[in-house]
């Protein structure tokens, strides 16, 4: 109370001395002065994509660019769906992504738990080796992986996109770190209660690891959905393409139908955007805990 009155009295004096400098606060954090322009820069391409996707081809080629279309041409979308096996690509991408996410959750949990809790000979060394693979760029292992997949007879099938991505060092690392933070007594109690190792993992550890599992799922989803390079070198048949690969077929050698390409882009990005908004905090946590991918 007394403090409040002192502040009330002090205020007019301060305003007289240095108007607007202290005592008055901005209605927003100063950071917003930086963040707002940055946000605009990031958003403009997205908005432009959205605008272009409902323009006519002529409008897209106009200079200076037309930002407000004369009419909303939603038929661009239907045309995309008609002229390309778009729904097939969407389905392929969905299959590949879902399988990768499921595979990562399952196998990284198993490996992460083993590294976190089971004592076995050479555990630390093996774990370090797994970690070390994170430092090897994909381009380096691309060709060996290709050869293995070829031996498996999976080139130009969805299997080529799924099998190499069923588990990853990132997921193993992320989950191991998280599992180690869980109180060991819970697992000991479960052991005494008669649960097996696998039982403990599935009934005690995983239900308590929802945040880490969500993070891994979101990161894997984004990574797989947006992956372009690996599908490019393993898939040839239009029927087996993923969205990212299929979209390139809209870019012809001589002519690109920008409006159609953008309509297709919007459709392919929509699931990722929605997921990002829904699971933003897990996504950021994934980057924060690992400093990897994203």
């Amino acid at each position, binding site marked *: 109370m007394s403090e409040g009155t002192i502040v009330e009295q002090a205020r007019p004096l301060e305003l007289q001395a240095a108007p607007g400098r202290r005592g008055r606060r901005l209605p927003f954090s100063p950071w917003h002065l930086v963040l707002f322009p940055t946000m605009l820069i990031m958003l403009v391409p997205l908005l432009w994509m959205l605008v272009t996707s409902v323009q006519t081809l002529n409008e897209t080629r106009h200079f200076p660019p037309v930002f407000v279309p004369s009419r909303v041409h939603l038929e661009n979308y239907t045309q995309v769906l008609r002229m390309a096996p778009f729904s097939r690509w969407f389905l392929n991408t969905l299959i590949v992504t879902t399988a990768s996410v499921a595979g990562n959750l399952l196998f990284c949990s198993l490996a992460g738990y083993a590294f976190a809790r089971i004592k076995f000979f050479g555990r630390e060394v093996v774990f370090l080796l797994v970690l070390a693979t994170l430092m090897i760029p994909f381009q380096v292992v691309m060709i060996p992986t290709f050869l293995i997949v070829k031996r498996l007879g999976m080139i130009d099938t969805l299997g080529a996109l799924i099998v190499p991505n069923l588990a990853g060092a990132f997921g193993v690392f992320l989950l191991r770190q998280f599992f180690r933070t869980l109180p060991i007594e819970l697992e000991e*109690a479960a*052991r*005494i209660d008669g649960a097996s190792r696998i039982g403990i993992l599935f009934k005690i550890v995983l239900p308590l690891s929802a945040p880490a599992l969500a993070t891994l799922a979101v990161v894997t989803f984004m990574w797989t959905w947006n992956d372009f390079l690996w599908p490019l070198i393993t898939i040839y048949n239009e029927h087996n393409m993923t969205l990212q690969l299929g979209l390139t077929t809209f870019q012809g050698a001589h002519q690109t139908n920008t409006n159609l390409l953008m309509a297709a882009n919007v459709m392919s990005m929509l699931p990722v955007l929605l997921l990002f908004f829904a699971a933003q905090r897990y996504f950021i946590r994934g980057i924060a805990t690992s400093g990897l991918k994203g």
Partner: protein
Amino acid sequence: MAEVRFENVRKVFPGETVAVDEFTLTIQDGEFMILVGPSGCGKTTALRLVAGLEKPTSGEIAIDGRVINDLTPRDRDIAMVFQNYALYPHMTVYRNLAFGLKQRKVPKDQIDRRVSEASTMLGLDDLLKRRPAQLSGGQRQRVAMGRALVREPKAFLLDEPLSNLDAKLRVQMRAELKQLHHRLGITTIYVTHDQVEAMTLGDRIAVMSAGRLQQVGAPQDVYDHPVNMFVAAFIGSPAMNLLRGTARDGRITAGDLTVPVAGVPDGEVVLGLRPEGLRPSSDGQPSLEFEVQVVEPLGDEVIVHGTVSGQLAEIETGEEKAEIPAGLPGSRAVITARFDPQVRPAPGTRMALGVVPERVHVFDARTGTAIR
């Protein structure tokens, strides 16, 4: 129900830490056995060895005559209550209680029956749908007990189960635990560093120090006849006063106190005087002069700290000692006495403290073992 037997058990942790050594102890069928000792004495490790959470380096552990060294915790049919309860946070109370039975593929109707029996016994009926986070400390403690109860195991292992409760609740739960054991008669091994719990709960107590068993016996026996200075100093609160002394011709002299004690060979000894054995002197009794420093009235009794001439025998029990702020000359020793509430001397007074020769403990000064 079962008998649990340790046979010369030794447990060494990586880094050569010997947690338990030469540990031999048999816990009778239906017995309430307390493992008590200062922290780091190996009592929890001993318990975990029975649970199967640790493997003994050597020696045997047997339940009902069957060696269980190589059995998994699951196959040992024991239940454990952890210090922090270790309730499964993502499960309701009901599922926490039922988990162990489900793992053992007990039919659903039996699970329901046993869970409801246990929850009624522990007063958890209204809480079955809650999660651990929505429970108070005492309720969590009960759920942890209930999880052990429903299993109807051969033995209960309790690892300091009351130490996370506030003082009032602890007293209440202590009584409930004792009652529960009376009713069920399940073999129980209870680890604690709290000697009040040790004295009140146990059929027998096993005092441990530095990984070794010091003494096993009924609480009162251990209190009355400690086998060595460690047990003497550890059991009892306030702790037994231990004064250096010399035995000669059937008498022991410590400071200005001379007590006649038969059957003590001549030499250096340590005299053990329980605080309640010290009384304002009546004539003719052996006595020591006592200078009162701190008086703590507790209502039903008065704890008095003060100095006498003589030297304390130091023994590390891990218990905190009452600190006497005043600086002491080397020839004085701080001791503690326990008086009736009517006797309340003022700090600074000098008085004679009488000693009953029959209640004096005598220890060998070199080995610490009890002479009488």
